[in-house]
């Protein structure tokens, strides 16, 4: 199980940037594109997914020696579905409007490949502490990514942010950004930015490595 000694902070940090679920792994696209039309929807979906990620990660990690290999996917889905049902009722209790806005996508967290992916690839091979940190990092990274997409879509598509008007009267809203195609545009735009930064980072790292090699030799 000890693949490589990674510090606990690194387990948390990697989900934020280096292995960001949306911008780098491109997982969980269905909610990322479908319910990111406003910042609030995006945040709510992100937090709901984070909760499920945390709890599913913890449970899978605790039960990892009891779950038979042959039936592991079924077991994971049962565990995940349990927590999704909790989230579903919780959101309904907090705000029925939000529940209506998110619609079927709350139930669809069950089949979010990000959660199943973390359960299969990480939680089933690591101790509960690490699984919790990993789930938290991935969840926060997912929430951030959705929030960024949602902010762009809400400002351009409705001229508001968190429902508050951002512009004086007469702002021309870009209807397309509220439509599903707007999700693809905003997502593509952020991917462009992220990849651009990563390329610059990579270039800087390479230069630093070369410099240190020169110094060493």
């Amino acid at each position, binding site marked *: 199980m000890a693949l490589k000694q990674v510090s606990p902070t690194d387990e948390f940090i990697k989900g934020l940037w280096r292995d960001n679920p949306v911008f780098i792994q491109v997982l969980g696209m269905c909610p990322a594109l479908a319910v990111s039309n406003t910042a609030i929807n995006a945040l709510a979906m992100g937090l709901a997914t984070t909760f499920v990620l945390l709890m599913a990660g913890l449970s899978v990690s605790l039960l990892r020696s009891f779950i038979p290999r042959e039936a592991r996917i079924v077991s994971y889905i049962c565990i995940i579905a349990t927590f999704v049902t909790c989230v579903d009722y919780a959101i309904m209790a907090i705000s029925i409007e939000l529940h209506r806005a998110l619609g079927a996508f709350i139930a669809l967290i069950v089949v979010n490949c990000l959660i199943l992916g973390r359960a299969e690839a990480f939680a089933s091979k690591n101790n509960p502490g690490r699984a919790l940190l990993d789930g938290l990092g991935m969840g926060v990274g997912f929430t951030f990514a959705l929030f960024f997409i949602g902010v762009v879509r809400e400002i351009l598509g409705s001229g508001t942010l968190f429902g508050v008007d951002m512009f004086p009267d*007469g*702002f*021309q809203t*870009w*209807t*397309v*950004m509220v*439509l599903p*195609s707007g999700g693809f545009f905003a997502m593509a735009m952020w991917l462009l930015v992220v990849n651009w930064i990563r390329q610059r980072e990579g270039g800087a790292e390479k230069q630093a490595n070369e410099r240190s090699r020169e110094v060493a030799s």
Partner: protein
Amino acid sequence: MARLSKYLEIGSSPHVTDGTSTDVIMLNVFLALLPVTAFAIYAFGSGAALVIMVATVSCVLTEHWLCRWTGKPSTIGDWSVAITGLLYGLILPPDLPLWMVFVGGVFGVAVAKFLFGGLGMNAFNAALVGRAFLQAAFPQPMTHWQMPFAEGRFEHIPTSVLAMPFWEPTYDAVTTATPLALMKFEGQFAAGRELMAGLTSGSVGETCGVLILLGGIYLVARKMMNWRIPASIFLTVAAMTWAFQLYDPVTYPGPVFMLFSGGLMLGAVFMATDMVASPITNAGCWLYGMLIGLLVVVIRFWGGMPEGVMYAILLANAVSPHIDRLIQPRVFGTGRGSR
């Protein structure tokens, strides 16, 4: 060829060309579009002139800056992007705010052309993608039609055209409905003569069917356009409309109305014939045209929007590589009868 070279020159086909290059073809397309553009400015006045100008400039600038930004030589010299810009200007409403014209031009060239690899690689017609984006982003300004031949159209620029960037336009010009909207929502059919002469309202350059046809005939005569595509579109639309009109003459208009209303003429002659986004083989072109004709009739008769030429052509663009795969000419010496 006269002088024997010291080296054996090896090149890939084609070895025999007729000497036409991209810029020669584009110059001829420009000549073919000249009467349409002139009529558009005459009919809609200074607003249309500004829209066409900004459309062309936005497309050319986008291509130039993207080439510079990615460290490639600028490709605006072959005039293809200028023609894209001119065509894009001709399919916009005449009183569209200039900042929207600019946004659509940038989107069309950057996303539909440059991201796919530039000239010769675009899967979709860049001008139509720009318009489709505007249609989805700004539905109200994109379905707002200025009255043609209004008084004082040359001296007075419509206020909507000069709207502040990112702000909603205000309208002061006299507006009217397009013939297709009248058909869809009021059940009225405009007379064929008015449609052919361009006396009705519509996008900047789509109103005068006769001039568009003349431009198309010029290009066909210069062998710079595959006549099968427009012919196939016209035949399909005419045949389907004729059949429906026989069935119910009150609900469905006649073939002349369908052929000369909306963007069908401009779309069939100048958009569907985009050399890159249309099929290669002649049989493929017939099939492609039939698909566009079928989609146009279906969208116009039963769709939610009055006009469907733009979406019909974009959908057919998407299908055209598959048409090319479906209808592959037999390679010489293979297939039937070969051993």
